[in-house]
C-alpha cells in the first residue's frame, strides 16, 4: 500500500531516494548493533570466559555452562522460578479475565473503576514491595491481624518462612499487575462484535453459555498474548525479590533473574553470570516456541 506511491528506481539498485530510508532507521540500527543483538553476541562471548570483576578475561570454552549445571544452587533456582511462574501466570490470567468481564459492563462511572484497578500498575515496584512487606508483617501487620480477629487463624510468617515467601511474592505481583492484564482483556473484549451475542441470545443461550462458547473462543488470541508476556515477565521478576526478601529465606525466593544479578553485580562473576543469562534465555525461548507450536490447537483467529 505505502509502497505503491513511491516509484521504484529502475536499473539503479540504490537510488538516493532509497538511501534516505536508512537515515530514518539509523539510530535504531545502531541500537540494534550495540544494545540488543550486539550485546547478546557480546554476552555469549563473555559467557565463554572466566571474566571476574573487571580483570582480564581468559577463554575457557563451555566450562561456565558445565559449572552452572552442576552448581548445587542451580536446580533450586530453576525450581523457584518455575514455582513462581506456576503461581503467578494462571492466577494473573484467570483473575485478569474475570476483572475485565466485570469492568466491561457499560454502567455509569465504569472508567473511574478501571482507573482505580489500574493504579498499582503505575506505582513503583519498590514502593509496592515495601508497602506489602509491612502489610504482611507477621507480628504487627494488618493482614495477620485480620486473619486472627475475623477467622481466628494464626497467620504464617509470610515473607520470613521458606514455604510462604514465594507464594507471597506471587500474590503481590498479581495484585500489582492485574490492572494491566485487565486492560489487555478489555481491548480484546471490545473487539468481539455485538451481533454474535445477539445471535446467541436469540438461540436461547444463557450468559454463562454465551461466555463459554462465544467470548472465550473469540478471546483466545488475547489469552495467548497475555500467556506469552506473563511467562516471559515471570522469568524476569526482580524488584519484588530485591526489596522483599533478597532471595531469602535460605534461597527460597532466589529466581533465575535474581541469581544472575547476584552473580554479576554483587560477586562480579561476569562470565558465569552471562552463562546463567543464556540458560535463562534458552528456557524462555523454548517456552515461547512451545507456545507457538501449541497455539494452533486452541487459538482461534477471526
Amino acid at each position, binding site marked *: *500500500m*505505502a*509502497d505503491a*506511491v*513511491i516509484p521504484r528506481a529502475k536499473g539503479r539498485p540504490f537510488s538516493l531516494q532509497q538511501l*534516505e530510508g536508512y537515515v*530514518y*532507521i539509523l*539510530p*535504531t540500527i*545502531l*541500537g540494534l548493533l*550495540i*544494545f*540488543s*543483538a*550486539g*550485546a547478546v553476541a*557480546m*554476552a555469549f562471548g*563473555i559467557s565463554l570466559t572466566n571474566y571476574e570483576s573487571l580483570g582480564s578475561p581468559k577463554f575457557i570454552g563451555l566450562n561456565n555452562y558445565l559449572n552452572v549445571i552442576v552448581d548445587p544452587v542451580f536446580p533450586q533456582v530453576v525450581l523457584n522460578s518455575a514455582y513462581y511462574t506456576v503461581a503467578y501466570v494462571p492466577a494473573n490470567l484467570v483473575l485478569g479475565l474475570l476483572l475485565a468481564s*466485570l469492568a466491561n*459492563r457499560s*454502567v455509569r462511572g*465504569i472508567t473511574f473503576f478501571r482507573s*482505580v*484497578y*489500574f*493504579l498499582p*500498575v*503505575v*506505582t*513503583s*515496584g*519498590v514502593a509496592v514491595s*515495601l*508497602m506489602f512487606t509491612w*502489610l504482611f*508483617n507477621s*507480628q504487627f501487620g*494488618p493482614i495477620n*491481624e485480620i486473619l486472627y480477629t475475623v477467622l481466628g487463624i494464626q497467620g504464617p510468617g509470610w515473607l520470613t518462612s521458606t514455604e510462604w515467601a514465594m507464594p507471597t511474592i506471587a500474590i503481590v505481583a498479581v495484585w500489582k499487575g492485574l*490492572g494491566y492484564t485487565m486492560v*489487555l482483556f*478489555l*481491548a480484546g473484549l471490545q473487539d468481539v462484535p455485538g451481533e454474535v451475542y445477539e445471535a446467541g441470545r436469540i438461540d436461547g443461550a444463557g450468559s454463562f453459555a454465551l461466555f463459554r462458547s462465544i467470548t472465550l473462543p473469540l478471546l483466545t*488470541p488475547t489469552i495467548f498474548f497475555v500467556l506469552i508476556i506473563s511467562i516471559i515477565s515471570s522469568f*524476569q521478576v*526482580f*524488584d519484588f525479590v*530485591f526489596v522483599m526478601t533478597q532471595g531469602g529465606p535460605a534461597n527460597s525466593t532466589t529466581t533465575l533473574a535474581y541469581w*544472575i*544479578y547476584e552473580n*554479576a*553485580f554483587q560477586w562480579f562473576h561476569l562470565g558465569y553470570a*552471562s552463562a546463567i*543469562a543464556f540458560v*535463562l*534465555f534458552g528456557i*524462555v525461548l523454548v517456552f515461547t516456541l512451545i507456545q507457538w507450536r501449541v497455539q494452533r490447537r486452541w487459538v482461534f483467529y477471526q
Partner: protein
Amino acid sequence: LRATGQVRPLGKRLIVSSPRFRAKLIRQLIATLFQYILLIAIGLLFIWPFAWMASSSLKASSEVFTIPIQWLPSVPKWENYAEVLREMPFGRFILNSLLVATLTTVGQLGTCSLSAYGFSRLRFPGRDVIFMVLLSTMMIPYEATLIPIYLIMFKIGLIDKLAALWLPSFFGGAFGTFLLRQFFMTVPTDLEDAARIDGCNRFDIYRRIFLPLSKPALATLGVFVFMGSWNDLLGPVVFLNHIQNFTLSIGLTAFQGYYVTEWHLLMAASMISVVPILVIYAFTQRYFVEGITLTGIKG
C-alpha cells in the same frame, strides 16, 4: 412494543407500563446494585493497601508496633515527612528520576517514530528483514544484555552517571517502533500524495502529517515509557553508586537499608515516591487505559 410492557427510555424518565414489567425493573435495579457492590469491593482491594501506607506514614513511632493494631494515627504526624526529607535527599531523587524519565521518553518517541516512519512508508533494500530482526529482539531478556551494556558504559565512563540510564533510549527500541509502525500503517496514502504535490519532502511529511496524526499513539507510548523509566530499579541498581545520583526507586531501597524497621518513616518515604507518579497518572490515565485499546497492543 409498548403494549407488551417494555421499557423505553425517554430522556431521563422511564415509561413503565405494566406491573409485570415493574417486577422486572426491580430485578434489574438489584442486579445493578449488586454490580456496584462488586465493583466497589474490588476497588477497595486495590485502594486499601495505599490507605494503610498513608495511615502508617502519619503515625508516631509508638503507634506503629501495637497489638491490636491502631488503624489510624491519633494525631497525624506530618513531621515524619520532614524527617525523611532531612535524612535522605528525596527532592534530589525526584529531580533525578524526572530527568531520566523525561529524556528516556524524548529519546524513545523521537527515534522510534523516525524508524517507524522509515519501516512503514519508505522503500529500501533489506527493510523487511531488518524489521523482522528488530522484532525478534523483543524476546531477549534484559538480564542477558545487561552485563555487556554495563561493560560498554564502563568503557565510555558513564558508570555512576544518569546518562547510563537514558542514553540507550536514543537508539530506538523494538516495542516502540512496532507500536508506532502499526499506527502509521493506518494513515491514508492520499494525505501523503497531496502533501507531495504541495512540495513537501519526506521529512516534512513525517513532521507535518505523521507526527500530528499519531498524537494519541505517541501519548500512549510516551506514558508507558515514562512510567517504565520512572519505576525502573534494576538499571539504577547496576549503574549508580553515589547517593546524589540516585533515582527514587533505588533511593527508596537505600532508605530501607538504613531504617529497616521504622515503618512510619519507610511508609512516608514510599508515599513521597508514589505521589508524583500518581499525580501524573491522574492527568494522563486515559492514555493508559484507553490507549491500549486504541493502539491495539494486545497481539
